[in-house]
């Protein structure tokens, strides 16, 4: 299932209350490497339907970025039952994105 846009308003419902594991892709329009990673994350989102993949724009949803100590992007954060189980900072190749999304 393709990555869905989430803001600080619906973060709790879409991420913390999700019954599936969720991977949050923190990005910003001025971040070049984020633009490169984004399509890869989208592809993996399509290929791994058991995990929900969402995108959070750090400018629009600054409170979320601050709450989860995101100070370097691109940054992927994995949540299971509302708790953070892992994080990946920087551009990573597709096989690594897959592993991260699957929780391996």
């Amino acid at each position: 299932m393709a990555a869905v846009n989430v803001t600080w308003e619906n973060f709790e419902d879409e991420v913390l209350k999700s019954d599936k594991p969720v991977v949050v892709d923190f990005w910003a329009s001025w971040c070049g490497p984020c633009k490169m990673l984004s399509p890869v994350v989208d592809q993996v989102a399509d290929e791994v339907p058991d995990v929900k993949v969402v995108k959070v724009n750090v400018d629009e949803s600054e409170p979320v970025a601050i709450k989860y100590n995101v100070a370097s992007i691109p940054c992927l954060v994995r949540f299971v039952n509302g708790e953070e189980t892992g994080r990946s900072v920087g551009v990573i190749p597709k096989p690594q994105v897959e592993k991260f999304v699957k929780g391996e």
Partner: protein
Amino acid sequence: MAEVWDMIIIGAGPAGMTAAIYGQRAGRKTLLLEANMYGGQIINTPEIENYPGIKKTSGAEFAQELYEQATDLGAQMIMEKAVSVEEDGDIKHVHTEPGNTYDGKTVIIATGAKNRPLGLDREKELTGAGISYCATCDGMFFRGKDVAVNGGGNTALGDALFLAQICSKVYIIHRRDQFRGDKSDVEKLASLDNVEFVLNSNVTKLIGDPKLEAVEVTDSKTGEKREIPVSALFVAIGQMPENKEFSNVVKLDQKGYVQAGEDCLTGHSGIFTAGDCRTKTVRQLTTAAADGAVAALAASGEID
């Protein structure tokens, strides 16, 4: 029968992708092997203003255009890290990390370089918590704060100019008494009120837990130490090549760069090199593109 490529290009940065363009246009079947992300180092650059013919663009845009140009021409890209090249008569076997092998008549090593880390205690721990190697990615998180840039080349100067627009203060820490980068950028920085040059200095300690709070710098001439409170340190102290795995097919200099001149020849038939990974004085998009073209044409000339 396994597919045999005319040209296998290791690395899809500007040199590699230019080689792919020239290779495809010369009627050669080219394969690009990329370990991480196409574009390489340039994707971290917010503004490119010195590429001839392009007044202004961003690194990511440039990388994307180049990628589309190469792949529209038919070049194939596989996102796997090449870990060794085995010579087998006229064929080169290129082995990749996941355990695959690609056969090619010629190989172009265009592995570029990686950001050099400071090599200080706690650097890894603080990466993402104040230490960054990409001002364009992370600068915005330090809006209105005091930050530092370590380095003396164009990347450091470019980073400082970018950060000076959004941060309250930017310290540029450089171990020499003069910057290596473009004079025009040095002058621009010197005219900004919120930029302070900290020359003849090395960063010797990273302070703060769990986030960076300050850096200790030591004057290389007097030994005097100074603690500068900053929320972030952007490291731009140069690059390191990663070519050890190919030392069986190319000669490396003492810094690890592939020994080759502007003809991109390595001395091994069928093996060429292009871009930042080879020994050279000027590492820029322009010279990477030049190498890509030269290497591809040389490789093409060696086939049949």
